[in-house]
């Protein structure tokens, strides 16, 4: 028995986890708007009142 027979299915499990995460993120709408979040992160946290 070579190590390949064990490691390869294990690697494929990781691939499966990554694919599952991607599909979940896509279907929940993370890739719908690629422009606005890039601008939004430029803003500092708000809510504090500055006079």
């Amino acid at each position, binding site marked *: 028995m*070579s190590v390949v027979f064990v490691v*390869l299915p294990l690697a494929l499990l990781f691939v499966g986890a990554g*694919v599952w995460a*991607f*599909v979940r993120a896509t279907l929940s709408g993370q890739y719908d708007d690629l422009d606005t979040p890039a*601008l939004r992160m430029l803003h500092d946290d708000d809510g504090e*009142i500055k*006079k």
Partner: protein
Amino acid sequence: MSTSLQLGTTEVRSGADAAMRTAPACAHCGLATASEASDHTAEHVFCCSGCEMVYSMLQSHGLGQYYALPQRRERPARSSGRSYEEFDHATFASLYIRETADGLSRTELYLEGVHCASCVWLVERVPLLLSGVARAELNIRRSLATVEWDAGTLPLSQIARTLDTLGYQAHPFRGVSRDALRQTENRRLLARIGVAGAIAINVMLAALALYSGERNGMDDSYQRFFRWVSLLLTLPAFAWPGRVFFTGALSAFRTRSLHMDVPIAIALAAGLVRGAVNTITNSGPVYFDGLAILIFALLVGRFLQLRGQRLASDSAEMLHALAPSSARIVDGDRVREVPTAALLPGMVMDVRAGECFAADGRVTEGSSSINAALLTGESRPTRVTVGDPVFGGTLNIEAPIRVFVEAAGEESRIARLLQQVEESAQRRAPVVLLANRLAGIFVAVVLVAAVLTFVIKWQYAPQRALDDAIALLIVTCPCALALATPLAITVAIGRAAGNGILVKGGDALELLSVPSTLVLDKTGTLTEGQTTLVAWSGPLWVQPLVHALEVGSSHPLAAGFRRAWGDTSVLSATQSQHFAGNGLEGMVDGTFVRVGAPRWVMAHAHTPHAEIDVALQGLDPSLTPVCVAVDNEVVACAGLGDAIRADALASLRILRHKGWRTIMLSGDSPAVAATVGKTLEFEPSAVSGGNAPEDKLAFIERCKARGERVVMVGDGVNDASAIAAATVGIGVHGGAEACLANADVHLTRPGLATLVELIEGTERTARVIKRNIAFSVAYNLIGGGLAIAGMLTPLIAAVLMPASSITVVVASWMSRTFPQQSERQS
């Protein structure tokens, strides 16, 4: 103006500073203020009251940090002051507002004027400004704000008013339900691509092991293991991402039409079945790596195609959102706004100058002139007074009037016309794209070749016959062919959109590349669609005097003078008086000036003027004549009318040279149509005037019945049904909503030069498509030849198939179908 303008720099300037003569910057938008207009004793100065209001609103809510944002919009906050009352109406709610799961209301608003990070910041802080708003999110690319709020405590109109105060006018977004559908479709396609890509990469890794093992002598147990891994990885790629091709092929079979999906499905199925059998029996080649990449590449192509088309139809949607959605009705002694959909016969509408009528009716109060060009194509304004009928969609030019509504909504003339438009759009036969026409031939050729290979090989080398026939089926999978057209079209649609040409479907691009019959509307398409000064005979020193008088008038003819000479006059007029139906008089620069209808001006003049009489006789009959008298002496005459677009003749010449047959259909009187036709070098038989919308439609239908391809170019509702019926309909800049909704192409830049740009772009696109098809056929001939000769190994197949697709992708991307935006601007 510098972008790093901070609050501190806008401090009050002392008297000594005044010597520098720098105007203080507005504390909100950072633009220079008119120094005399601002109060120098105040802590901050503002360029306008709008900016001041926004500033105090932000400060009082603790949102002053807006002014520390690195990138701010340097534009005064001009509020429109609209009440947005119609946003609270029940009809509006049923059209645009949806309930969310947690009892809130949700709508999408199209905002005018959002463009940078500070806009995102400001719009998304609306919940802090108004209690009751739960969430506001802005999509900057689409200028769409999604708002969720508690309808019980806060009316939508107040949210809209707040956005308006901030300088963003809100419009209801009409595509809400379709948008949700698209979104799920988009997400699913993206997820499919991700899965297909991940699988393709892993199958390729397994294939790498197999190929290198083949060369160096791999243990049989390893080889069997990697084959099984490839098979088990490929199966899900077929089961989910790849299924779209099988369902596509199946529906093509059902409708008995051939589609590119059919040969793709055949190749994929042949490859999978043969590979699975070979894996189980542990003999012969497997093609899993090639198949997995194929699925991935085809899905990416499909995604790009979808995105390109949506970009164009989205932009068109935004233009619709700008159309007026409300009307003001008179309710006792107050006037309130209601959505157009809520208008009923029996109501009385209040229509200001410059507004559109929202329904059909009769004038009950006031008199004005209206522009019915939208409905009739007649470019000259018509006078209406109490008792005269007016129609929805036409424009009130001169004075406020009240209208008793007789027919609204579905019953109005414009709605009936639009219904006709929809019907003719539905009757239109779908266009079969070149690639899909090729699909039929392709399937036949490949199947025959595969059968022949099998039969002939069976005689000589029976053990290789099946493998080679199947290899042929797989390697000729028309991947590149399927990508050839959509990619070229997607790239072209994207580039065209950057140039202000919105193309809604790929078929239009293909159809426009071959010259056929081009039918053009006159008003607004070949001409400017607005009254302007066209002819002038008389001394030039008179012009400033006339200008001074006309600047103060709201008459459409006065607007024509202003369009020619500008909105501000050097001289000013005093004691100016308006005589309805006749003209204007007043004192300018110490002289008494009278401008108006020749009959009226002549009647008041001392002496008849022979020279002016001759000039009047020689005036184009399509123009409205105007005479000018200075100190009761007739000195000049002018002709005002709808001027022909400056680039019209040159553009038409280019198109005619390319082989297009040009025809002009006008709703205007035959005499006017004939003069315009003559100037633009139309053949007399190709010009027709006095056409009602129905006549235009009938003309298009007659042409199509003869088997001709007709391209219709127009701008008004009167062209809409013809545009919808035509093989390709093109709506021009400034056109009516109905016309744009049904047009396949929408030109957002004025002038006919854009039309030439479009046609030339389609010609180049057609060349790119043909080149792509030639590439893919060449690759298929090589691959097919190798397969028939029995020299095709899975490795060659796995290299050949993606290589052909990549060639096509690169060739499409590098193509110059439409000039790129930056090139055009420079």
